[in-house]
């Protein structure tokens, strides 16, 4: 199922969920031309945010991606509290909820490296391009080498545009 940014991001913002878009979604927001397969967000782990997050996604049947059907998986605040990172399917599309991310830490640690951008009628928080490059590097996956190259090229293009006023 396609990553559904146009539905998931406004849903989370309007439900007052504290989250930061990272991964391919953040890369897209910064101008990347690469495909991504899910929506990746780092979420705050305080009880109020867990309650909001659980409530926001409840109507969209969150389930563990790749797990066999019929597992006794209950989507609620308690499950969120017991776990940390969840790779989910929902009726809105695939969604990765990360309590912590390599190279970025928890929500509060990542927060200073974010910027708000407006999209689909809401203001949404994305990790900065510079930090995204660091996160990709910290992930240490061979497949990210191409991604890092593209993100660095974006950074160069952006700076070139800024210096020429384009």
């Amino acid at each position, binding site marked *: 199922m396609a990553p559904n940014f146009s539905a998931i991001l406004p849903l989370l913002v309007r439900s007052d969920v504290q989250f930061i878009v990272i991964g391919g979604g953040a890369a897209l927001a910064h101008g990347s031309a690469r495909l991504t397969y899910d929506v990746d967000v780092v979420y705050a782990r305080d009880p109020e945010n867990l309650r909001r997050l659980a409530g926001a996604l409840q109507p969209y049947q969150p389930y563990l991606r790749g797990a066999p059907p019929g597992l006794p998986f209950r989507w609620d605040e308690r499950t969120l509290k017991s776990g940390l990172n969840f790779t989910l399917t929902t009726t809105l599309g695939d969604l990765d909820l990360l309590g912590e991310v390599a190279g970025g830490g928890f929500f509060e640690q990542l927060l200073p490296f974010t910027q708000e951008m407006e999209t689909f009628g809401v203001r949404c928080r994305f990790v900065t391009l510079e930090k995204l490059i*660091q996160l990709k590097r910290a992930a240490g996956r061979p497949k990210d080498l191409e991604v890092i190259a593209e993100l660095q090229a974006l950074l160069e293009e952006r700076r070139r545009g800024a210096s020429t006023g384009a």
Partner: protein
Amino acid sequence: MRGELDKQAPETKAVIAQHELAPAEYSDPVIEAYKKDVDRTLLRENLKLTVEERFVKFEQFWKYAQALREAGRKSRQTE
């Protein structure tokens, strides 16, 4: 052997930590090699769009790719 690795571990960890926290501009020959293949015209076009337009373009492309995939699947079934 294990003792030797243990001796090297702090140094290795330090190198990894340094690499992880290197500035965004930090590059290496591998990244530079990949960078040569980046299509900058696509990036320049994307940078002219708003954030929302970038997402819409992406989602439209995804739908198009899925339709192609589905057509390919149906075509193989009828062969």
